[in-house]
């Protein structure tokens, strides 16, 4: 298989991911409640982490992918903090 085809497919997929992130952003802005927004942000950042990995492939710079895990972790922390705040009103309890 030609390597060129691989990069073509990956670039198309990257474009798809960019376009779906626009949809997520619409929900992020529109979202009527706080959990809605956080959910959209969540989906957006998981989208973004795949985007980073694909970009690392596409740019032929594997080291670009190092931001991926940190992003995932902090977004999860955001989830937990928001839900903790809504449920318990005090984080430390």
């Amino acid at each position, binding site marked *: 298989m030609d390597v060129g085809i691989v990069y073509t497919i990956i670039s198309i997929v990257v474009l798809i991911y960019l376009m779906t992130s626009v949809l997520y952003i619409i929900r992020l802005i529109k979202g009527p409640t706080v959990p809605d927004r956080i959910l959209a942000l969540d989906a957006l950042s998981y989208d973004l982490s795949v985007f980073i990995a694909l970009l690392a492939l596409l*740019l*032929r*710079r594997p*080291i*670009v992918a190092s931001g991926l895990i940190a992003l995932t972790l902090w977004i999860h922390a955001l989830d937990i903090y928001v839900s903790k705040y809504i449920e318990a009103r005090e984080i430390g309890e």
Partner: protein
Amino acid sequence: MFLERVSWRASKRRPRYMSDLLASLAFRTAMIAFVFNIAIALYGVLSRPSLVKKFLCLVAFTDSINIFAVFIGFRYTPGAYPSPPILEAIPTSPAEVETLINTSVDPLPQAMILTAIVIGIACSIFLLTLILMYYRHYGTTNIHEAEEGEEPHAEAL
């Protein structure tokens, strides 16, 4: 005067290509966004009465300055993608280091914003504590409301 200055730089420049123009367009867009981001964030800090909003705008302000530094360090390498300033493997000859210089972006702004980010975090922690304490004292984080509640001459004493 402007024309003079532009032509002074133009003598150093190579002929432009389509991709060059595209890169320049993208770069300009990002720079415009950055400059307006700084202005909006600064406006937020100076005019919002709520301390929490002030704090958020302050964080946005420092972060947009950091992003500005990333742009300063950026470079456009036609034909290849700019690479992070990291050697792939232990170089066996000086020529391998030279190849990195041809594609790498500027490492110094990245190192500087690393320092600036830590300082920003440190300041944020302290500001948050102060805002918490302010809330404990005044019962609100709105500076206008808090100042209304005070007796007028408390300041002068």
